[in-house]
């Protein structure tokens, strides 16, 4: 097990190195002189030289690459071209917001998906099963940003129950305000995520309930509830965890657009803002951080398998 984790860790580090390399060369593939684009109307040859020196773009591309790798190892992602703050401090201030939305979306999605998937599996081919299937299809077909707007329209504009924009931090505004600001964006992302998960819960439970160990559990007189929860559901969770891991990408992608809808300055909004400002150091830093989160979230999922199912041996 330990050997497997070390091997996967090394693999993840190689992938992250590859991501950093790809991001570096992608940013150097910008047609024309990015310095001219970054400076925009403030362009003068002197300002261009100064910015080029500041960003290290006056060096040979391979030297820039080695420097960029060295900077990453020191957790230094450079400074924003606006000069107001370093890239990592901007990302660190956005990270809690993005992670809060992603985490709450995950909680909402599993809270909906597990009971709905179980219900659909136990009442197969019933109206409940059809309703869950319909929700699943609608959930994955719906643009999350549109659903976010609908939620604002209903819960903020018409009912006035929840704020439509912004973010409140737990430390300054308290848990309730934090929750009230995050519930709508998290629901907007969580609905699509729940739609995918519930289909896997249903399929996994249907397969598990047809197994020999379920027949044995029933034969020895266990209560049906215990058979379903203790034996069926637990064993059906493995594919669900796999999908939950793979779909972390969905959560992270969702936050990019949803943060714009709800005016929350997380990593997604930071990235989109940086693209408009032609702030390339910020763009490459934000993309890299998202890729790192995604790669390590998947590593975590791999390790979680063994906790859910001790039968899985990696050696």
């Amino acid at each position: 097990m330990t050997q497997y984790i070390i091997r996967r860790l090394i693999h993840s580090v190689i992938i992250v190195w590859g991501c950093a390399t790809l991001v570096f060369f992608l940013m150097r593939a910008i047609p024309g002189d990015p310095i001219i684009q970054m400076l925009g109307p403030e362009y003068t040859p002197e300002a261009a030289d100064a910015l080029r020196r500041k960003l290290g773009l006056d060096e040979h591309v391979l030297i820039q690459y080695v420097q960029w790798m060295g900077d990453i190892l020191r957790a230094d992602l450079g400074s924003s071209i606006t000069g107001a703050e370093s890239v990592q401090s901007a990302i660190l201030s956005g990270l809690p917001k993005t992670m809060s939305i992603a985490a709450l979306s995950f909680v909402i999605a599993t809270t909906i998906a597990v009971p709905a998937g179980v219900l659909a599996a136990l009442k197969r081919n019933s109206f409940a099963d059809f309703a869950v299937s319909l929700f699943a299809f609608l959930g994955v077909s719906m643009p999350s940003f549109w659903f976010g707007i609908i939620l604002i329209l209903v819960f903020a504009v018409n009912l006035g129950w929840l704020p439509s924009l912004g973010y409140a931090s737990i430390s300054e505004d308290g848990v309730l305000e934090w929750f009230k600001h995050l519930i709508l964006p998290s629901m907007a992302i969580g609905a699509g995520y729940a739609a995918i998960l519930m289909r896997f819960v249903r399929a996994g439970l249907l397969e598990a309930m047809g197994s020999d160990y379920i027949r044995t559990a029933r034969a020895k007189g266990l209560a049906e509830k215990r058979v379903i929860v203790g034996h069926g559901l637990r064993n059906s969770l493995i594919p669900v965890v796999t999908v939950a891991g793979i779909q972390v990408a969905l959560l992270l992608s969702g936050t990019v657009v949803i943060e714009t809808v709800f005016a929350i300055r997380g990593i997604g909004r930071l990235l989109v803002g940086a693209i408009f400002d032609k702030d390339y150091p910020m763009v490459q830093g934000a993309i890299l951080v998202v890729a790192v989160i995604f790669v390590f979230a998947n590593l975590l999922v791999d390790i979680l398998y063994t906790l859910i199912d001790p039968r899985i041996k990696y050696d």
Partner: protein
Amino acid sequence: MINMSPDVATDVSAAVDSAPSTRRRFWRRLRSERKVLIGLVIVAILAFIAIFGPLLAPYDPEADDYELFAAPSLDHLFGTDSFGRDILSRMMAGTRISFTVGISVAVLSMVVGVTLGLIAGYFGGWLDSLIMRFMDLLWAFPEIILAVGMVAVFGAGIRNIIIAIAVAYLDDFARVVRAEVLRLREEEYALAAKAIGASHRRIMLMHILPNTLAPVIVQATFAVGLGILAESGLTFLGLGVSPSTPTWGLTLNEGRDFIRQAWWISVFPGLAIMVTVLGLNLLGDGLRDTLDVRGVKETV
């Protein structure tokens, strides 16, 4: 001349005889699959609007001579926007753009992804490692983030959007095809073709590729929907097609600022995106069941 034993000859003739009945069974299964039928109807209606939209639209999508923020009525079924333009006419024009982007994304990612998957699976070795490690890199970026990054580098515009989204999704095709090829290259007919001296290109294109088509078709159906969703997301962020093009994502974004006074500007384009992607997902899911395809990335 190849000599066949009587047993083999009987097997071959039985297989030839059974081909039409297999095809009949497939069509029967396809017709009985409700998801395919509903999906096909939705997609066919929208494709019709995409082709004949300009002829069917009640007004010129660019004409701004109507009442501002007119609510849905018999004159303007989906209302008008902040410039006084008819939303329904703009959405009909947007259908063509969405379908163009979705289909282009699917075709581009399919052609490149299938080629890479075929080469990786067939030749194996270092070429397989090289291609699949590159696919791992693409996988490590959430699709929309990769697309946003590429648009940041190469600029907005319909061509760049299509390329950016296609690159973000091509690893799905490569993985599906590679997995199939790894299995198919050990099949007897592939080995037989190799034994009689067929070239690698011939074996790949004539013997292996046709047998990977089922999962590729299913993946491509999903890819059209994913392409439409991604394009609307990028356009919504302001990174998509030019602001003068009446796409669904752009109309939806324009309505966001007026959500309190004119909900219809955002609601109808979002519904159009949802219904279109729903149709494609139903079609893809039904085809997956009919063709008994495994391993295609689950979108639903």
